[in-house]
């Protein structure tokens, strides 16, 4: 046995101790570096590899009619994408057996669902890229069918899409969104603050299988859905009016037509129909000028429907009664106007007419005489009270105030003062026209037209979204009653007006055949804006219906508008179960001897 030379164990032990301490210090330093100095960066890098963040899209609120029928709502559509670099034949289980499906066969199946050709689809699938959009915004039903094909290299991105289930019904009012969901027209724009929701966000950690890691930190900002806008529109009546209007505008070969129905006692707009109709599901298929609503935006000289205002003004000013006598010649020259001559629409001799008769025959010369009894400044004030030249305040974006020249202009222009008595030299929108008649139907009080009931939150609380305008006392109740009696004579005895009669009901109204200025010549052309505005029942007016056909080519007077009025008014009275009238019209003479 050999023994090693003994060393110094204490020194050796110290060396080992120093080595251990040095290693410990190194490890400790690295540990501090990893755990403290670089900890945040490492944690962040690690988290970014695991964390998934995604936007939770909010759903835009519905737009409904007055009976809560949905006119616009949001659904999900799906973008179908592929990663070409992993596109390959795949197995599909058919009747319990695995069948190999080629890419070409899959492309054929997809093409049938997308309405594309197989080569078109195939071109999007072949390549080395990581992303290719095969189809954009397909319906949920198509999405479901694609998923059934069980193609492993397709991916689906849901995106909110706006649907208008009733198509063009109230399309001009509703407006539309662009492909990115931005509102571009109508109520969609005007009430975006109510309708738009707030997108949320979700962040979570996932494993390799894509499933959330238990107890991983989840930061979620819940998406807040948009609120609901309730309109005053009656969708069924709106459809009916659009049907009638579209058919008749085609028959009249007019440029366009409008129909408005107002609930007299509330000012609610039950119908605001335009022809041509416009489908907000496919805005690109309509021309830009047809995408809004002319009911609110397009003003034009109303013509003879304005004679009601002239008569009501003169009655309220105490200058005439419905039976005051006038002699209406065929033509009259406006005094101090350098010979500006006004004629009636048809040649006739001097006719002995009452105020009611003047409106019955729609005599321009008679209306000028009635209007001339009232100082023009007073008539100007009445026109303002009737709403001419002021915003109606319906809440529809871009509504027009029409045109009422300044008092100074009127003061300097005698022709404007005279022709305004029969609806020239001023312009109003179809809605403004309807509201003038609403005023006399509502015992002389003009209300603010209402298109939007309000914004409704998820709890069902309704908030007004339009600024209230105070009702305007236009004429006294007695004057309004006298004016209604005159309007009833138009329908009872008028050559054209009687075509607006609805059996069983006392109906009042006024025809309008307005000349239209030709922009090329600056003079009135041959085409007219024909209209009829009426109300029923006269004994207790409930509804005003105003109809216009612009540039009618087959019928040049309001005989073309009365069938539309009659059909819509009949339907309105039926819809709201208005009992037939039990009283008779006032015994007012329309002529004198």
């Amino acid at each position: 046995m050999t023994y090693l030379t003994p060393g110094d164990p204490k020194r050796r032990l110290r060396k080992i101790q120093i080595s251990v301490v040095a290693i410990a210090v190194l490890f400790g330093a690295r540990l501090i570096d990893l755990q403290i100095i670089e900890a945040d960066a490492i944690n962040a890098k690690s988290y970014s590899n695991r964390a998934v963040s995604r936007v939770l899209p909010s759903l835009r609120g519905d737009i409904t009619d007055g009976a809560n029928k949905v006119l616009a709502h949001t659904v999900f559509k799906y973008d179908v994408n592929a990663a070409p670099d992993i596109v390959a034949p795949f197995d599909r289980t058919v009747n319990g057996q695995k069948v190999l499906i080629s890419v070409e066969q899959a492309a054929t199946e997809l093409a049938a669902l997308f309405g594309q050709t197989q080569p078109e689809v195939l071109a999007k699938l072949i390549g080395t890229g990581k992303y290719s959009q095969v189809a954009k915004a397909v319906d949920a039903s198509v999405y479901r069918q694609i998923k059934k094909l069980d193609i492993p290299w397709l991916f689906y991105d849901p995106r909110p899409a706006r649907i208008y289930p009733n198509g063009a019904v109230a399309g001009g009012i509703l407006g539309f969104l662009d492909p990115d969901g931005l509102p571009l027209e109508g109520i969609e724009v005007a009430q975006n603050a109510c309708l738009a929701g707030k997108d949320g966000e979700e962040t979570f950690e996932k494993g390799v299988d894509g499933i959330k890691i238990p107890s991983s930190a989840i930061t979620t900002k819940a998406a807040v859905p948009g609120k609901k806008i309730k309109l005053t529109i009656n969708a069924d009546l709106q459809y009916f009016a659009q049907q009638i209007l579209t058919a008749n505008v085609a028959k009249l070969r007019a440029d366009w037509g409008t129909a408005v129905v107002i609930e007299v006692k509330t000012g609610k707009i039950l119908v605001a129909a335009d022809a041509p109709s416009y489908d907000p599901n496919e805005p690109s298929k309509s021309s830009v000028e047809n995408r809004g609503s002319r009911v609110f935006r397009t003003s034009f000289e109303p013509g003879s429907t304005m004679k009601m205002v002239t008569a009501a003004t003169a009655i309220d000013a105490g200058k005439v009664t419905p039976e005051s006598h006038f002699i209406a010649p065929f033509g009259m020259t406006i005094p101090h106007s350098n010979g500006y001559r006004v004629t009636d629409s048809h040649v006739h001799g001097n006719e002995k007419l009452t105020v009611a008769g003047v409106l019955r025959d729609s005599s321009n010369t008679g209306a000028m005489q009635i209007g001339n009894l009232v100082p023009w400044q007073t008539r100007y004030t009445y026109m303002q009270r009737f709403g001419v030249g002021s915003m109606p305040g319906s809440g529809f974006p871009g509504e027009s105030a029409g045109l009422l020249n300044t008092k100074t202009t009127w003061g300097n222009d005698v022709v404007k003062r005279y022709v305004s008595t029969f609806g020239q030299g001023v312009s109003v929108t179809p809605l403004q026209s309807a509201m003038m008649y609403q005023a006399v139907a509502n015992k002389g009080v003009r209300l603010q037209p209402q298109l939007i009931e309000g914004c409704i939150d998820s709890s069902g609380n309704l908030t007004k979204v339009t600024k209230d305008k105070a009702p305007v006392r236009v004429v006294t109740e007695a004057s309004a009653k006298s004016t209604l009696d005159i309007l009833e004579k138009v329908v009872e005895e008028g050559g054209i007006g009687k075509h607006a009669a609805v059996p069983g009901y006392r109906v009042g109204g006024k025809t309008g055949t307005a000349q239209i200025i030709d922009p090329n010549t600056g003079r009135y052309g041959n085409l007219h804006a024909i209209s009829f505005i009426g109300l029923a029942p006269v004994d207790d007016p409930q509804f005003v219906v105003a109809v216009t056909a612009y540039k009618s080519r087959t019928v040049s007077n309001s005989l073309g508008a009365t069938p539309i009025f009659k059909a819509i008014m009949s339907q309105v009275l039926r819809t709201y179960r208005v009992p037939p009238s039990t009283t008779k019209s006032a015994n007012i003479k329309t002529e004198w001897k």
Partner: protein
Amino acid sequence: MSTVRLTQAPRSARQLPDRASLRSINLSGLTSSPSSRVVVATITLGAVAIAIFQLLLHIATSSSVYELSHLQTEKRELTTTTQILGQQVDSLASQQNLANAAEKLGMISNANPVFLRLEDQKVFGKPKAALTADGRVSRNLVPNSAMIRTSVIADPTSTLAADATNTVATGTPQAAGFVAVKANVANTPSAVSSVVSTSGGIPASPTH
């Protein structure tokens, strides 16, 4: 051959220490008492139990997460189904579809309404057949590209025949062609919530 490192020179026998004197010591203080054994056992078992419970909880949580994920997928599918069915109902309930279906069934809008006042049974207006009425518009003129589904209306006569057959077979008057249309009507919110019939008067809307 082995080598042994000596740390010190071997001592001589004389230098060996004296034989150690042995003495007895009391070990009672070094052995654990029964109570402390219970404490140790409790702590150990408790720790094991907690570990097992935590493991089970973790397994349960994991499986719940998978179940949650599965349920969320199912919810998405059901939401999609709801959306598809909702769109179909909307299409079938749209005015355009109803107008088209009514036209196919031979129904015509009558432009000459006639009113009956119940209190004196007076008829207002002259009843005319819808076919001869002026201004009738039955064909749908208002476009709707969102109409993805339409009512299946067979020939009215065959539909009536099928209706009759179905009535015999099931005891309820339902025909395939009618089912969709009737469902639409039932699902469409009425413009007027209810109609109040007052004695002697005609049915009137509650708002008027």
